[in-house]
């Protein structure tokens, strides 16, 4: 019997295997940020342990960083102290760091791939659940807790039990205007927030193969929202083309050797997954969430569901709680939901293609009166590229705010937050209660839906926009 992609990558990293024990896995790349690392460095210090492999470790600042006035001292003393702690720890232990103001700074899951550090067949970990993003390259990538961060710093390995494997096969063509974000939201709604628990997901099928690298990252990013340990996509020409020439991609003979290896990283035809899910891409449409977990979503054309329609008691209760928190009524059309804020950014949808997609819709249009729109590039590199293409101008002319790179309103650890009761359409990955600010209400959407929503002031897709929404004729700017 053949092997799945996940099994192949796992097996290539086993340092030690013994009966009755978890496998000891070697970690190829360890990404650090300011929030989940301080207690890990403390642990090293207490035990007088060094960082074992500085050459496989890299840090950036993202969760706490402000997105305006970045040249001024950070106002919040606690945020400032946390960033200063990271700087101090990296200096003391010798870890490469890209701090605020550096050209390689940004959300950790945007930075790794764009440097070419995330490569097929590698193991990637970070003290952050959205590490699953890197699985888009055919890497085995998962989020870890702070104790494990310390473990990897000290040993470059992790003892882990191998999860089961689940194939998510998406065949057919995504209809016009339907994006990777809609696809992953639909997958999570189908299998539930616990549906992937204990599994490594492999996204496959023609619809997945046709996606760009950035769209693949959007999908793998949200694997954790289905409860999965990791999500993966087999590397192919698209992957190799994305990597070639990047700072840390292999070169010369190494490149050829790497590609030869990467080409073996496919699930064998006779491999068997522990579970399988099939999705027909052509049946999908723009998808939004109405509740307080990412599995509580529906097509934009649908209505807010009636909790009474759930057979399962705990789902019913969860839906009731969600509607109350979200201030929604069963049966209300999703398109009738007005928003106060639109956020485009995060490690899910803060890459250049996402900004291009939002800008294309906003070009020549205006953000609706009373709506605040924040555009936060995922990294400084993304920001520079957007400026080169003039996207920042499109955003500001439409009335949106163009900000500096970071996590920003994805989790509101910096000043970018929703006020209590405020409602957002957000391209991020979590709609948990209070995630974007205490009492804030979040609807997860694609960048395209975010932009159309900003123009109309209520949840909408680009197809809802008429020429009349273009206040200034195209090309007249």
């Amino acid at each position: 019997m053949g092997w799945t992609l996940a099994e192949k990558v796992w097996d290539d990293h086993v340092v030690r295997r013994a009966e009755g024990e978890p496998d000891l896995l070697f970690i190829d790349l360890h990404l650090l940020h300011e929030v989940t690392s301080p207690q890990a460095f403390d642990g090293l210090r207490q035990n007088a342990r060094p960082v074992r492999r500085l050459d496989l470790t890299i840090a950036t600042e993202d969760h706490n960083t402000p997105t305006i006035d970045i040249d001024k001292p950070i106002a919040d003393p606690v945020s400032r102290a946390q960033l200063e702690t990271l700087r101090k720890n990296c200096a003391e232990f010798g870890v490469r760091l890209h701090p605020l103001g550096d050209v390689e700074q940004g959300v950790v899951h945007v930075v790794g791939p764009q440097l070419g550090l995330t490569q097929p067949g590698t193991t990637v970990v970070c003290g952050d659940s959205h590490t699953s993003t890197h699985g888009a390259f055919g890497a085995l990538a998962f989020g870890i807790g702070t104790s494990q961060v310390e473990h990897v710093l000290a040993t470059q390995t992790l003892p882990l039990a191998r999860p089961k494997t689940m194939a998510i096969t998406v065949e057919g063509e995504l209809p016009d205007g339907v994006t990777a974000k809609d696809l992953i939201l639909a997958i999570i709604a189908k299998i539930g927030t616990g549906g992937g628990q204990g599994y490594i997901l492999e996204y496959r099928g023609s619809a997945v193969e046709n996606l760009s690298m950035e769209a693949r990252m959007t999908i793998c990013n949200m694997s954790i929202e289905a409860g999965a340990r990791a999500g993966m996509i087999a590397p192919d020409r698209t992957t190799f083309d994305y990597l070639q020439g990047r700072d840390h991609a292999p070169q010369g003979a190494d490149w050829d050797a790497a590609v030869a290896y990467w080409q073996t990283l496919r699930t064998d035809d006779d491999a068997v997954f522990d579970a399988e899910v099939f999705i027909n891409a052509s049946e999908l449409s723009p998808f939004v969430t109405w509740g307080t977990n990412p599995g509580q979503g529906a097509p934009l054309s649908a209505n807010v569901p009636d909790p009474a329609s759930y057979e399962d008691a705990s789902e019913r209760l969860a839906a009731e709680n969600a509607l109350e928190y979200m201030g929604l009524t069963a049966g209300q059309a999703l398109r009738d939901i007005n928003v106060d804020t639109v956020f485009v950014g995060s490690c899910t949808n803060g890459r250049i293609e996402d900004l291009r997609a939002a800008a294309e819709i906003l070009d020549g249009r205006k953000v609706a009166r009373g709506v605040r729109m924040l555009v936060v590039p995922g990294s400084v590199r993304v920001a520079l590229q957007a400026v080169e293409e003039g996207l920042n101008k499109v955003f500001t002319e439409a009335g949106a705010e163009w900000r500096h790179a970071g996590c920003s309103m994805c989790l509101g650890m910096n000043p970018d937050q929703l006020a209590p009761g405020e409602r957002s359409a957000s391209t991020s990955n979590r709609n948990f209660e209070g995630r974007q600010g205490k009492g804030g209400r979040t609807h997860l959407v694609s960048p395209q839906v975010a932009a159309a929503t900003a123009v109309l002031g209520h949840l909408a897709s680009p197809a809802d926009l008429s020429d009349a929404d273009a206040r200034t004729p195209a090309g007249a700017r």
Partner: protein
Amino acid sequence: MEAFTTHTGRAVPLRRSNVDTDQIIPAHWLKKVTRDGFEDGLFEAWRKDDAFVLNRPERKGATVLVAGPDFGTGSSREHAVWALQNYGFKTVISSRFADIFRGNSLKNGLLTVVLPQETVERLWQLTETDPTAEITVDLVAREVRADGITAEFELDENARWRLLEGLDDISLTLQNEADIAAYEASRPAFKPRTIQA
């Protein structure tokens, strides 16, 4: 890590599913750089409501959390485990835990016990009817006991041994230094490096 053998205490019945780590400890608490002092952040938003179960006087000093399915979903923040422990919880019972949360809890000596939802339901009913009712979580016998309820639970042998002994993972792994060094020596040259050696 503190060893866990058996624990008996009163319970907090938390009738909610999908309790994500943003609810357990909101993001603004994550700016702290220590492992302690998180108790006031535990379930912070819900605790604003006097009727919230944790605020009830009869739940004061409870050490066993009995939660709905899919507890600990979302962010990988270990702060969620620290917050539960700082508050005084020794063990959490649920029919399903998120993977990362479960891993984090076991690494810190917070025992997460998986029981069928019917048993969780019975524990809820018992402890809601009688707030003084005690629950025993016995890792030696792999059993949860309460008035009229005895339920076995599973935990993989290795994790159980480490908890019972209170063993530190890093020291255990470092005993395999020779294996790690051998693996490192065999890695292909094309693998990425963050800095040139």
